[in-house]
């Protein structure tokens, strides 16, 4: 049973306990009498007033979701991704936020010797990550985690190698995350959505790797693609978040994510 939590300081959190009626990614099995998947209409943030927040909150306590609960900000400021498909999509949203913030810095403070081709590629990737971030935020609606703050202190943005190897790490990490999360999703439409994004991340990874090691096998190198079965890198959320956490100011918790 969902219980209305204490109102947090971040606006999006207001919506996180509105049952699952503010996002597109969740079906409610309670209305699924015929067993078929149904999707609830997206209601934009702007349409939601304080009154409806309260109304929906009451509603939430009457209609517990079986598809997962939205994000929570704990008293210590840590952010829980939520549960079910919502939790997995928040996990993706967190990673896309991180990637976008990184490429914003890369373009704003270009490394020494960045040529026109590199600038075009990195600008394209920045834009794609913004699209992914904005799309996931809109799709998650009220269940989304708040905006995260990045910590890029370990990256030397003036140095080509530092930037590109970090980009490679983020892209490969993203590929591994989506590859591992697919089986954790319970709804086919959410899986399809993730699938549309992961192959673009893989394209990024290949192109970044090509910038680092041109005309080699690195674009799909044996360090990420198994040599015997030719399967790409895969990681579960715990591993991915441990790798991503040093770059994120807020502590992310994933204890409610599905594990199988």
């Amino acid at each position: 049973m969902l219980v209305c939590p204490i109102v947090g300081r971040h606006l999006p959190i207001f919506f996180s306990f509105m049952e699952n009626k503010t996002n597109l990614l969740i079906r409610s099995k309670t209305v699924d009498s015929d067993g078929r998947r149904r999707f609830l209409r997206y209601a934009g943030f702007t349409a939601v007033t304080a009154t409806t927040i309260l109304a929906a909150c009451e509603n939430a306590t009457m209609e517990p979701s079986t598809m997962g609960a939205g994000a929570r900000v704990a008293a210590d400021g840590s952010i829980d991704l939520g549960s079910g498909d919502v939790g997995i999509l928040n996990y993706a949203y967190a990673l896309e936020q991180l990637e976008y913030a990184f490429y914003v810095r890369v373009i704003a403070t270009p490394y020494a010797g960045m040529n026109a081709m590199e600038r075009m590629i990195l600008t394209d990737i920045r834009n794609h990550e913004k699209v992914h971030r904005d799309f996931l935020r809109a799709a998650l609606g009220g269940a989304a985690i708040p905006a995260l703050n990045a910590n890029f202190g370990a990256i030397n943005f003036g140095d080509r190698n530092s930037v590109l190897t970090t980009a490679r790490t983020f892209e490969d990490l993203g590929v591994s995350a989506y590859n591992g999360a697919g089986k954790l999703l319970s709804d086919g439409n959410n899986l399809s959505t993730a699938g549309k994004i992961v192959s673009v991340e893989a394209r990024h990874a290949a192109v970044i790797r090509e910038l680092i090691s041109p005309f080699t096998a690195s674009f799909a190198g044996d360090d990420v693609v198994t040599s015997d079965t030719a399967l790409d890198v895969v990681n579960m959320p715990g591993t991915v978040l441990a790798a991503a956490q040093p770059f994120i100011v807020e502590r992310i918790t994933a204890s409610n994510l599905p594990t199988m």
Partner: protein
Amino acid sequence: MNLQNLFNALENVDSEIYERVKHVSRRQLFSFGKKAALVAAPLAVASSLNKAYGQSMPDRTVEVLKFALLLEYLEDEFYRIGLNTAGLIPGSDRVIFQQISKHETAHVALLRTALGSAVEPKPTFDFTARGAFPTVFSNYDTFKTLAQAFEDTGVRAYKGQAPALMVNDPVLETALRIHSVEARHAARIRVLRGMKGWITGMEGFPGAVYSGDQATNEREINVPGISGLSSSVVSESFDEPLTKDQVLAIALPFVRL
């Protein structure tokens, strides 16, 4: 060269094609008139193969794996012939195609193992697509064009089948891990051809491979609207799936029936 040429190339197809298409009556096919029947052949073959695979093995997972194996057979043989054709691939580029070829060979082996006794033998391929690409192994540009088409098709094909594999987590994960490898391949070949690694709108050839990839509405959300970015950028940001029939319509002209 466009898709219509591919279909027209099927006019050279011999009558054997209909013998192999056991789920489509010959009378039905010919009742359209010869020309119409031949143009319609790819889709008829596609849906017929689809049924043939599905009926013998009710397990949808097996069906998807057989479909994937057909595409991997195609890619594997394509690169093997390319690498073994003297003078086709410049020395500087061989490392790229060797890596891709290694992966496709591994995918074939993996899928064959997964299918076990349900495995289908490799069909005979015609990489000219019945004359549509006569220079496939003599002109490097043609070879690269088809390599890109096969990889981008592979990405879209696996993507389209993923939801059907949700009943089997290990198979789903395996398919996703092949899917992203194909995307790495596709990106590298696109860059080799002087293109972006990602697909702007429907940029690529043949057109059927990129049909619908220009989409910018996702899950009822107008993504250019919420992101403030152009339709071109948004289309690059999402790779769209293809249905099995769409993929078979692309692939079957390369299968000698």
